[in-house]
């Protein structure tokens, strides 16, 4: 915030390399936002950082690492430096409805990371298989799926984000789907929070943990196998504290009692309280034999995996260090498995683990579900 004010006052130049490193090393994980809002009702630290990034990008000030990433994105519509034509390779042999040709109730948006990270393909494949077994009408956009734009937005590329948001919305409208489902926390945050805020987006959005939690509660699926595992759950930032649904607000600031600043009507308060915390924990705790142990920092105070807002791409060393901190915290619980519900977190943890001598394994929550059914 101090730096934003210094930029607004023209004390610091947007071209200042030190400024760029400070601004773009932030993972926009929202932890400071939650901490500030424990006591404050009028501060939006995440919003300030986002606006600062928009300003810098608008002025052509960005880290050099962005150049190949954005170039590829503009050509191939993904954040993974991969070819668009390979986007549906993960689904080979699955017999899933292609929404560009067929109809389904639910669009399963796989996202860039699951689509192109071969080591994680098992997760979206399992989701499709499980949902089909549960009788859901689910389809994918296949090769025509686009990036959600959420990470771009956090990186400061609002214009690019808007393009993808409109494209995705149009595609789903054309396909006639009733809801959007995703297993990626970045995509979830984009659809749940950013799309309704930035474009005219109305579709219901679910994370796979919300859907499977509901199926378990309704008895539509049940776990039949026992998994004797001690696990700890990592809250992805964009599913947890930043995964709160958007609530429209049109109002104004005013002062009461002389100088006390209030909002009229009541302004929605995004302080991390309404994130998706319970569904993944409910799922884990229903699996016979699994013991869930919490890390020191969990739910709205969870430590970031280090991959957020382009930091993995822009500052890989810092990103890896951040993941390592979280792994140490997970190891300290005595858990054998670090479970998460976001491919970006899982990839960052897996890469950081490869550089360490730790036995803890990284699972997607879908891995647990698939094994226990």
């Amino acid at each position, binding site marked *: *915030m*101090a*730096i934003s*004010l*210094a930029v607004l*006052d023209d*004390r*610091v*130049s947007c071209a*200042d*390399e*030190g*400024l760029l490193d*400070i601004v773009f090393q932030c993972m926009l994980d929202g932890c400071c936002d*939650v901490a*500030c*809002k*424990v*006591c*404050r*009702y*009028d501060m939006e630290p995440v919003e300030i950082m986002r606006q600062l990034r928009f300003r810098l990008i608008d002025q052509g000030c960005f880290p050099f690492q962005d150049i190949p990433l954005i170039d590829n994105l503009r050509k191939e519509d993904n954040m993974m430096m991969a070819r668009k034509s390979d986007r549906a390779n993960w689904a080979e042999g699955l017999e899933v409805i292609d929404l560009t040709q067929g109809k389904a109730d639910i669009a399963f948006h796989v996202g860039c990371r699951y689509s192109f990270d071969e080591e994680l393909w098992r997760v979206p494949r399992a989701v499709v298989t499980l949902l089909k077994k549960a009788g859901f009408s689910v389809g994918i956009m296949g090769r025509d799926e686009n990036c959600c734009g959420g990470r771009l937005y956090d990186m400061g590329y609002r214009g690019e984000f808007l393009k993808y948001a409109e494209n995705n919305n149009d595609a789903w409208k054309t396909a006639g789907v009733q809801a959007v489902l995703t297993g990626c926390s970045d995509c979830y945050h984009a659809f749940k929070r950013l799309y309704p805020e930035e474009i005219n987006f109305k579709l219901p959005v679910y994370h796979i943990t919300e859907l499977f939690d509901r199926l378990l509660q309704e008895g539509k699926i049940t776990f039949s196998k026992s998994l004797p595992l001690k696990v700890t759950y990592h809250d992805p930032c964009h599913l947890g504290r930043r995964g709160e649904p958007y609530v429209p607000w049109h109002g104004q600031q005013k*002062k*009461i*009692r*002389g*100088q*006390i*600043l*209030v*909002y*009229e*009507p*009541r*302004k929605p*308060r995004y*302080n*991390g*309280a309404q994130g998706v915390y319970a569904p993944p924990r409910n799922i884990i705790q229903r699996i016979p034999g699994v013991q869930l142990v919490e890390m020191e920092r969990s739910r*709205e105070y969870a430590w970031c995996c280090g991959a957020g807002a382009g930091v993995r791409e822009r500052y890989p060393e810092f990103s890896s260090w951040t993941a390592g901190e979280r792994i140490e915290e997970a190891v300290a619980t005595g858990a054998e498995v670090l479970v998460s519900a976001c491919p970006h977190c899982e990839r960052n943890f897996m890469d950081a683990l490869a550089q360490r001598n730790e036995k803890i394994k990284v699972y997607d929550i879908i891995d647990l579900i698939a094994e226990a059914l």
Partner: protein
Amino acid sequence: MALSREVYQALEDIVGTENITEEPATLYSYAYQWMAELVSDVSGGSKFFDRPEAVLVPGSAEEVQAIVKLCNRYKLKFHVYSTGWGPWAAPPSAGQILLDLRRMNRIVEIDEDNMFAVVEPYVVAAQLQAEVMKRGLNVHISGAGAGTSVLANACCFQGGGPDCIYFASPQDSILSIEWVMPTGECLRTGSLGAGLGWFCAEGPGPSTQGIIRGALGGSGGWGVVTKIAIRLVHWPGPPTMKIEGTVPAYRTPLPEDLFRAEFPAFPNWQAFADAIYKLYDAEIGYIAHRQFVMWGDELQAAFLNIVTDPSKQLCDIPELLAMPEIQKLTEEMRRCFQLILAGMTPRDLAYQKNVLDCILKETGGWNIAFVNEPAVQQYVLLFLIRLCFKSLNFTATGSFIDTYNSVASPDIWASGEIEAGKALLKKYAGRIADAGDQAMGPISGQGGGGVTGWEDFVFYDPFDPDSVKAAIEVSDEGDRLKAQKGRPPGGMLLGLARNTHADETARAAKLARAPEYRWQRRLRELFDPNGVGSGNYFWGTEPKGEEA
């Protein structure tokens, strides 16, 4: 005035490339400090003070020594910073380097048997408290909150808080000290100076307690204290405080047979003062503070309802104030304070509760029933034991200062000074928040009792020029009123912070305490012959006119 390349290189050689910067964005983040807009003669009315020329992040006392010696060689001023809170955290003038001690964040030792901990400057109270609670011990937390430096609160600036009645004031809790003096020499005081460990402040080695600390501390301009031993007290609670509740209404469920939060309330200020004396005499209480009146006696009941209910916001204030139960609670709370009783055994707590009941009976007081609601009870326990919600001071308007505060024996509560403070705030109500009596302060500022007091909070909007102007005016008027009574200026000392000797307020305040300032300057000349310590807003300037 950028540093010469020769000096920068010499500093970089000490701390390494990674731990020094002169990037403007980083430098300005240190120049941005709370209340800058009030200290307009220094900040020019902006949100920024002068930025440091470079920021260094030393990792050890040895590196600090080397930096300070280099500053002496080049006659370069340095300012020291740990967790930072207020105008004194920024360098008071241009041309200085800033030492940020955040890498020195180690708990060096916890001596359970002798009940002390040795810490570096960036160990924050929450961090130390969490560790010592595992060992059945607890540590004083400054009124500034759990996120602030234990060492800085003890040695460098004020540091009192709600728990002093049991924990003692921070200056009374310091044992041995490792001090890099303004010359760069390292002095180890108390028992440490004689090579006997950290357990004693006053000997057999040298004692410099009063010089290092005094009433206020050096505010970053008096060498660098690199380690201290701090006294610990008993903690009868669990090894970790379990936190429950939905953000922001966190709470802690502590054993009910060992802990109890009470709001003793009184029919008049004389009864309030009498009860404090009786509390001292009876030697009960773990924490005692007039805390929630920081929101104003007219608003504290409404605010308590808001912060303990995640669904509520500040826009609910008018509706809450219209509710009969809130109106009743508001009236009940006008002359109350918050008291945490902690029993070392259930029998001990029962005894303390009985004693409190007797005190209330003798003074005509009562316990406010609102605090019996479990969510409120557990919120108050967490608030006062951990002091983790202290930024609520900023909630109403975004910033605050204090004015017309008092430090005295308990009689002060019945002397009419509360009403005088309230009348002062009422005069400016509208331009500052209209909240009523905002006299927040400790029931005892020292262990076992003896001295009490308060700060009259002033909530102002730091982005509203007229509100800022009103905050300056009310602060000055408060200091003027106090100077007329021969009392020192307000706790945050803004009159002095603005450092305008031409200003009637600051001059009167300094003249009222002239011998103290004179002695401070003499000591400074002795300990800092090259004048490289940054000085601070309160005593760092050269005396002028009558004052000299």
